[in-house]
């Protein structure tokens, strides 16, 4: 079976710097791959190539076997759910309108959109009657992020891109959000690329982990093998789990 996402020798240069170097990996149907790496290692740049917000300088990214450059961009983007690091909710839209946006663009009828929005908020533990009519400015940072997740899931895309979706959550809510993420991806068989700089989170949500270091994919393998990985950057990440152990 063709992988859902393929990176083939992907490089990216901007402003005279090589930001990604010869990235190659695949994400298979139903799998969650975590891209783990420090700040500035190139995770967001790689992720944004999947929905053609960034075009590789050389090499090719394929989605469902087709190069991102060969997809009509809007068609590609509408089948991918994207949760961005800064949430990017529309400040002039209510929660209802934010979540309902992609279904509306896809031509769903209003009753179905309403039912879907309620179902998603419920699943993310935000009471629909309390939240549907609020504006993003009237939500806490963590609530905004969850609405961002609901918006990405709204039209039920098969492929999900998550860029630090739970960065603003407190540890308890964060753990809950991670469990909800697992429930959604596992139960519905979603394929996901999950960017994080938190090894604990990567170990929890991902089937496989790709470790990014200075624009290079330093290591990739099953999440369970990461604890034994030989790479120096992998060792540093392991030490981050338990600083006393350094």
């Amino acid at each position, binding site marked *: 079976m063709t992988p859902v996402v393929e990176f083939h020798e992907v490089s990216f240069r901007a402003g005279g710097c090589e930001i990604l170097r010869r990235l190659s990996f695949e994400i298979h149907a139903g799998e969650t791959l975590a891209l783990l790496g420090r700040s500035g290692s190139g995770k967001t740049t790689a992720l944004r190539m999947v929905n053609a*917000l960034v075009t590789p300088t050389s090499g090719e990214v394929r989605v469902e076997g087709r190069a991102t450059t060969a997809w009509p961009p809007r068609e590609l*983007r509408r089948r991918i759910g994207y949760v961005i690091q800064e949430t990017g909710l*529309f*400040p*002039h839209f209510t929660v209802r309108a934010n979540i*309902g946006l992609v279904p509306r663009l896809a031509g769903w009828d209003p009753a179905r959109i309403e039912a879907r929005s309620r179902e998603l908020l419920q699943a993310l533990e935000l009471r629909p009657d309390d939240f549907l009519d609020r504006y993003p400015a009237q939500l806490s940072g963590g609530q905004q992020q969850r609405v961002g997740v609901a918006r990405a899931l709204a039209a039920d895309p098969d492929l999900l891109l998550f860029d630090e979706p739970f960065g603003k959550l407190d540890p308890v809510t964060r753990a809950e959000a991670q469990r909800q993420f697992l429930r959604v991806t596992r139960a519905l068989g979603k394929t996901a690329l999950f960017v994080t700089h938190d090894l604990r989170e990567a170990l929890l949500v991902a089937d496989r982990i790709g470790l990014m270091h200075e624009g290079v994919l330093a290591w990739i393998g099953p999440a369970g093998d990461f604890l034994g990985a030989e790479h120096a950057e992998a060792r540093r990440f392991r030490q981050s789990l338990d600083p006393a152990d350094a």
Partner: protein
Amino acid sequence: MLDELFTLVLEHLAMVAMATLTATLCGVSGGILLTRRAGWRPALLGFAGVMQTVPSLALFGFLIPLCGIGRGTAVVALVLYALLPVMRNTLAGILSVDAAVRESALAMGMSEWQILREVELPLAARTILAGVRVATVTTIGTATIAAAIGAGGLGVFIFRGIASVDTGQILLGAVPAAAMALIADAILGWFERRWATPAPTRT
């Protein structure tokens, strides 16, 4: 006298309405264009800036050889005058839309046109309206000078009053013009504040 006042007020209003509507249309379109063509910004903003710097009487004068004398010329001059605040505010308003908001709109598969109509313009509306308000108030004032090139309006009283050293006549032109500017400012200001709180959109 009252009859004439009434006629001149109407003339003034018509001139101002025509000029500000045209300036708003051109300024907003120009501003939108500039958000997409960064390279054109110095040229277009520079042009509009120069237009605004030329003393109004001189601008009217320059246009006479091109457009002749009368109301048409006056409106052209007033449009050139009012263009800058509208265009500059449209550009600034759209550029101030959060990059993450634009990015997520794009990532959700919205077209450039949808992003403009549903995201950028609503979010920039307040700033654009502030530009329109400035343009309108300025135009009401500047339009009094249009009488000098035979365009009519409240300036007729003012120029006649100056020529005959008749303060009453001057005030008869100046007071209604000032009142008109204050009223326009209040009305447009009210719209601006209304847009300060985001309006619900359809789902």
